[in-house]
């Protein structure tokens, strides 16, 4: 049982390049989330998903796209990377209990630098 895994762990991009971050969970969780963590700003929600094939925008969605074609995977795409997207990205998943999202489980993070 690996929990939540993220690929890659580190990445350096040049401005304008694109990339995809992969998140996988093996806990059969309904909900999945992408956050970015910047110093002094806590975690900010980028996009999230309430189930396979369903995604929604979070607090800071601009410049990012997501897809959830399989229940266990949640992909975050950067179409044209910008230096402002330099951050640490965390994926999380949570189970549904009594019809609502319960405890979140986090991946180890991806450290992205955009030059």
């Amino acid at each position, binding site marked *: 049982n690996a929990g939540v895994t993220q690929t890659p762990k580190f990445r350096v991009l040049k401005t304008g390049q694109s990339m995809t971050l992969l998140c996988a969970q093996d806990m059969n969780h309904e909900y999945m*989330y992408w956050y970015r963590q910047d110093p002094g*700003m806590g975690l900010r*929600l980028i996009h999230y998903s309430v189930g396979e094939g369903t995604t929604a925008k*979070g607090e800071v969605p601009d410049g990012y796209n997501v897809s959830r074609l399989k229940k266990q995977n949640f992909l975050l795409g950067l179409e044209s990377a910008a230096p402002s997207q330099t951050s640490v990205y965390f994926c999380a998943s*949570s189970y549904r209990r009594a019809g609502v999202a319960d405890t979140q489980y*986090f*991946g180890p*993070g991806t450290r992205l630098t955009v030059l």
Partner: protein
Amino acid sequence: AQSVAQPEDQVNVAEGNPLTVKCTYSVSGNPYLFWYVQYPNRGLQFLLKYITGDNLVKGSYGFEAEFNKSQTSFHLKKPSALVSDSALYFCAVRDSLDSWGKFQFGAGTQVVVTP
């Protein structure tokens, strides 16, 4: 709309002394409250949660938190801090009226425990 405030950027405490990390929240419905801890270069780890029931919640590593509805607070406490408790602590809230399962995180509080 939901929001969370952690009023202290950093808390300093001597080993063996009580530790308190403050959190206040604002929701439209009922709050679901969580505490997470983050060690350097790691993902967030779940500590404890309040969904319903007893106002005093006990969690991992000897931590506990008290839900206070009138003061809209959910402060994290530990009776006797350890050097190994030095980490970044996040409070998170989910509004019962939010059917999409979004969580709001505070900015985080850095705890430094000195020997």
